């Protein structure tokens, strides 16, 4: 039991916690300021002047649009594959007990538990051994592999809270397996899948380490950014792209949070 007495935290703890949170957030906010700077050649602070011209310059860049398009396509297809595989796996693991259940959980988590460079170079050496040329699908292959775990985690958490007797009741009332899935299971796990799908999309959209090994000459948006970081061509355009990426990943994360917040992720919130 937690004590109900409302106490205030010691001042030192407050300061340390606030400083920690500031450390986490200020650097990202700084990007927003740099997107408006008039300085082109360096990262000068404070910015000598403010302008919105770089938004137009970024809009007119075909390479940015191409990279963005590829990233969105890869993320969409990887998320779709991960949704199917992750849900199947979660349903099997949470609804039934069988030999090797623990091993399956481990297998699903392994692609993000091991450093990305291992996944990346493993895929690359497998492609080269099997003489598979780099293509759109080699990127998807890599991304879907580590997206499965995000969907799986969300779905498993929801299945655990969904009572098995609901499914039995549906079957007893004469629904066949597909009707039960359509009318009972899907509405129950729908928001968890949506949340998992959004996080998987964000994960794939942002992935760079595995992608450098599986993309060949193709440029996803993170690879485009990496190129700009290593060999800067037009720094203000990079600033604008960075700001847009922050905003674009913010929305799915907030949405996923609101979809699952009744759940166990924030256990203890109301205590």
């Amino acid at each position: 039991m937690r004590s109900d007495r409302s106490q205030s935290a010691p001042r030192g703890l407050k300061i340390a916690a606030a400083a920690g949170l500031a450390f986490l957030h200020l650097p990202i906010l700084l990007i927003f300021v740099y997107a408006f700077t008039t300085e082109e050649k360096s990262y000068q602070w404070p910015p000598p002047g403010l302008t919105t011209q770089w938004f137009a310059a970024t809009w007119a860049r075909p390479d940015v649009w191409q990279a963005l398009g590829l990233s969105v396509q890869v993320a969409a297809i990887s998320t779709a594959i991960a949704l199917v595989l992750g849900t199947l796996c979660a349903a099997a693991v949470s609804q039934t007990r069988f030999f090797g259940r623990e091993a399956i959980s481990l297998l699903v988590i392994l692609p993000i538990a091991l450093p990305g460079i291992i996944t990346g170079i493993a895929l690359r050496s497998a492609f080269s051994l099997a003489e598979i040329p780099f293509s759109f699908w080699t990127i998807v292959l890599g991304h879907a592999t580590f997206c499965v775990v995000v969907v799986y985690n969300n779905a498993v958490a929801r299945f655990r809270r969904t009572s098995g007797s609901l499914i039995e009741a549906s079957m007893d009332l004469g629904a066949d397996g597909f009707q039960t899935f359509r009318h009972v299971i899907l509405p129950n796990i729908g928001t968890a899948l949506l949340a998992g799908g959004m996080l998987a999309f964000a994960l794939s959209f942002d992935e760079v380490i595995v992608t450098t090994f599986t993309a060949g000459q193709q440029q996803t948006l993170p690879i485009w950014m990496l190129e700009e970081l290593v060999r800067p061509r037009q720094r203000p355009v990079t600033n604008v792209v960075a700001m847009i990426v922050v905003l674009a990943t913010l929305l799915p994360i907030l949405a996923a949070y609101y979809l699952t917040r009744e759940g166990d992720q924030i256990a203890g919130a109301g205590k």
Partner: protein
Amino acid sequence: MSVQAVTGATDVAAAILPKRGGFAGSLSDLLWRRPGLLLFLMLAPPLLWLGVVYIGSLIALLAQSFFSIDEFSGLISRELTLKTYGDLFQAANLDIIVRTVTMAALVTLASAVVAFPIAYYAARYARGKWKALFYLGVMLPLWSSYLVKIYAWKLILAKEGILTWLFAKLHLSWLLDSWLSLPVVGGNSLSVSFTGTFIVFVYVWLPFMILPIQAALERVPGNLVEASSDLGASPGQTFRNVLFPLALPGIVAGSIFTFSLTLGDYIIPQIIGTSRLFIGQAVYAQQGTAGNIPLAAAFTVVPIVIMGFYLWGAKRMGAFDAL
């Protein structure tokens, strides 16, 4: 719920309801009668994918570490040999391994120190709206773009950037300059020094440390801390004897992430750091420009082995319950 009860239920249903017609209906009945088949159909696609694509690739990689490269022709000979592992233990490569492991250990320590107050405040004092704010405050940086975060630090640590400006405003430029003139941690500017690499590593992996510590601290009853101070312990003693031991599984769980991620990263030290390599960069260079895939594969075995031992130790400390 036993299997008998379930089949009993279907027998009753079959007695009342007409047999289902159509392909979908009979398929559904078949799956209901044979749960093993349903389980097989559910598990086959994900296991085939992960087993073939992922495990298959890992085995292909490990196999290649037993091949070797012909020094004269530059071609890879596909004969099993331990020669590549011999190359791995040359002094230059050992340097890389020691440097990376040291960095990973320092980053893990620093993240734990920075993460603890945030996790403790969120677990014990934040309520309602503040609790949600803390949660989002950790989740947003965790999920926001990895490259953008590194880019932000490139802006901050640049010689003409905000940090240099801040030190100048506070009349502390001498402090920054003397730090940068130190042998190992210093450099031309923060963005080309190990100090910079270290700060960015801590920044990028910090949320991975906060979440498990918070999860561990949520389970510590508040009255335990009160009891400790009622019995006369100073806040420092309470921390050492009550809070820290209870938070330790969470810290170890978080350190799995910070340690493993630092071991394998090659982008952060490439963009913010010196020209001295880390394991990830060595792997990347060996497989790319050098074309020595066997040595690259052997290099990746190092973090796998280290993490294997680390996970084994963490499991013994009960860290997995805090995940």
